[in-house]
């Protein structure tokens, strides 16, 4: 009756061998393909460095004006512009400007990658139920797998630095982009699609003229979520060498510097709110045609 009280598990030797085989296999793979994969991601690394330099080498007042201008054109609301400027001024005053620019450049690139990959995947997913049933569980894994677990192979493959950081952040932040694109396109009114068919639209014309415009508010919500989740990964990404606001927080944890952690944490919250308000206000402005309802 021993098996009843103690779960009969695989014998220790076999288990050890299994783990060792997988580890060795992956190590082999890394040795063989690591260089190639690194070369593949080299354009991404260059883009990251370019954006980071652009933000850091531009004089701060100029950066501030540009961000304020973006806030204005996206939201057309003075309150959002003023809030943005005040937040950025406070961040700079507490000597966190450079780290903030590093983090912002990271978030911009991660969001761009997430949109570039997530939008087409979401669109394909909306077109095929089979594909949806394959991708959905993968997205579940990406969202629930502890990020430290996939940091291990990423670091083994690409070492420590910006690119593995971007990969880790994108893996974590891309699911809402894909899911909401899929959802948005699936929710498009069937009557309107039928009309597009009746006028002889090709599937590209249907996508461009009907599906994407009508799904856009939902897609914008996906982009907003992706940005927020990318910001949440900043501290974890700093563990594999991503510079920015995460590193001081990491140092604060190791050395119990409460104030250092708090300031940098607040700076992350500050830029999160800026990104959120601007992207949401832009999403709302895209739906202006729905506001004026016939009485």
């Amino acid at each position, binding site marked *: 009756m021993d098996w009843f009280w103690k779960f009969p598990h695989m014998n220790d030797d076999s288990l050890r061998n299994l783990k060792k085989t997988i580890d060795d296999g992956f190590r082999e793979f890394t040795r063989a393909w690591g260089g190639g994969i690194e070369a593949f991601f080299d354009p991404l690394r260059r883009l990251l460095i370019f954006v980071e330099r652009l933000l850091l080498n531009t004089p701060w007042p100029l950066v501030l004006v540009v961000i304020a201008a973006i806030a204005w054109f996206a939201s057309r609301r003075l309150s959002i512009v003023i809030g943005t400027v005040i937040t950025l001024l406070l961040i700079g005053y507490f000597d966190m400007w450079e780290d903030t620019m590093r983090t912002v450049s990271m978030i911009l690139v991660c969001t761009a990658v997430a949109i570039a990959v997530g939008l087409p995947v979401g669109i394909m997913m909306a077109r095929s139920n089979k594909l949806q049933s394959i991708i959905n569980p993968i997205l579940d894994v990406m969202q629930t797998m502890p990020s430290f677990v996939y940091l291990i192979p990423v670091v083994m493959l690409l070492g420590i630095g910006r690119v593995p950081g971007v990969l880790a952040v994108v893996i974590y932040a891309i699911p809402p982009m894909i899911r909401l694109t899929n959802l948005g396109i699936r929710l498009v009114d069937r009557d309107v699609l039928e009309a597009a068919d009746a006028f002889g639209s090709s599937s590209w014309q249907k996508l461009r003229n009907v599906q994407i415009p*009508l799904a856009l508010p939902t897609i914008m919500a996906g982009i907003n979520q992706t940005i927020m989740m990318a910001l949440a990964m900043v501290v974890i990404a700093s563990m594999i060498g991503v510079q920015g606001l995460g590193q001081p927080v990491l140092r604060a944890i190791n050395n119990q510097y409460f104030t250092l952690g708090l300031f940098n944490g607040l700076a992350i919250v500050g830029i999160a709110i800026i990104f959120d308000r601007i992207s949401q206000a832009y999403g709302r402005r895209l739906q202006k*045609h729905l506001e004026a309802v016939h009485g």
Partner: protein
Amino acid sequence: MAEPATNDIGIEIRNLYKIFGSNPAAVAPLVRQGISKTELRDKHGHVLGLRDINISMPAGGIQVIMGLSGSGKSTLIRHINRLIDPTMGEILVGGEDVVKMDRLSLRQFRRHKTAMVFQKFALLPHRSVLENTVYGLEVQGVPRAKQLESARHWIDRVGLSGFENSYPNQLSGGMQQRVGLARALTNDAPIMLMDEAYSALDPLIRTDMQTVLLDLQKEIRKTIVFITHDLDEALRLGDRIAILRDGEVVQQGTSQDIVLRPADDYIANFVKEVNRGRVVQVDAVMQPVAPGHQPVGEPVRTGSTVDVAMARLAKEPDQVLTVVCEEGRPLGTLTLAAVARAMVSDEH
């Protein structure tokens, strides 16, 4: 651009069947042998959409297809531009079988030969009236200047001038359907498919839109297929009417045929509610001219409704009205009694 189109594209539907279900081909022979709708559903798990439809729609006329919900009328109209694929049968449009077209020629056919107006308007909510109206031409790849010129013309013709830059959400239902109509007309296709186009509108606006359509049709002469569940609308618009019930055609003909000679009790029941005075023509009730008859007073033209004759006779009840042809030759005579009899159905 508004030159009266000489339209020679008619629609010929032959032996059309539509069966919904997992394997329509397997049960098709049973349906052809005349299995009942309920038996097909209960024993074989398939739903009969349309059975042996044969309708010949003349070029340049309004063909109304009337039926209650579930009669298959919306399914039928969607076969003409193949938004729904038939199980068997032929749909000949200008001599070409739509059923045999491949994907690309079907797309060309939809772009250039048909335009559709929908019950729920189906406008693009993110586009202005003008941008909605150009949609068909945009899909065809017509130059932008030409698109706008044509769109503005039809927006004006349906009475929406000044609303070019409004969004559909800012317009009432009637105005939204005017946009739907303008969008279809701008497509400049010989065939216009109107799927319960006016059913969602208030009665007064519906009558208004019927007038708009009839006025336009005098010059555009398109082959219009108009779906409705409203017999009054059918009688007012239809050059020819087909009545559908449970996926089968129960009667086809002109409004006179339907009102004066209903094929069965089902149709007779509908016709009972109709204002016959506005439908029945004097030709159907006049008596032959008696030899030596001397026409008194102003005659009525052939093709007038009995309403017109009644209004005249109500003033002078003893008069005998003369019906004359276009050239003024007498064709028959009308008495008050004959006209009054025509205005009530046999049931009363």
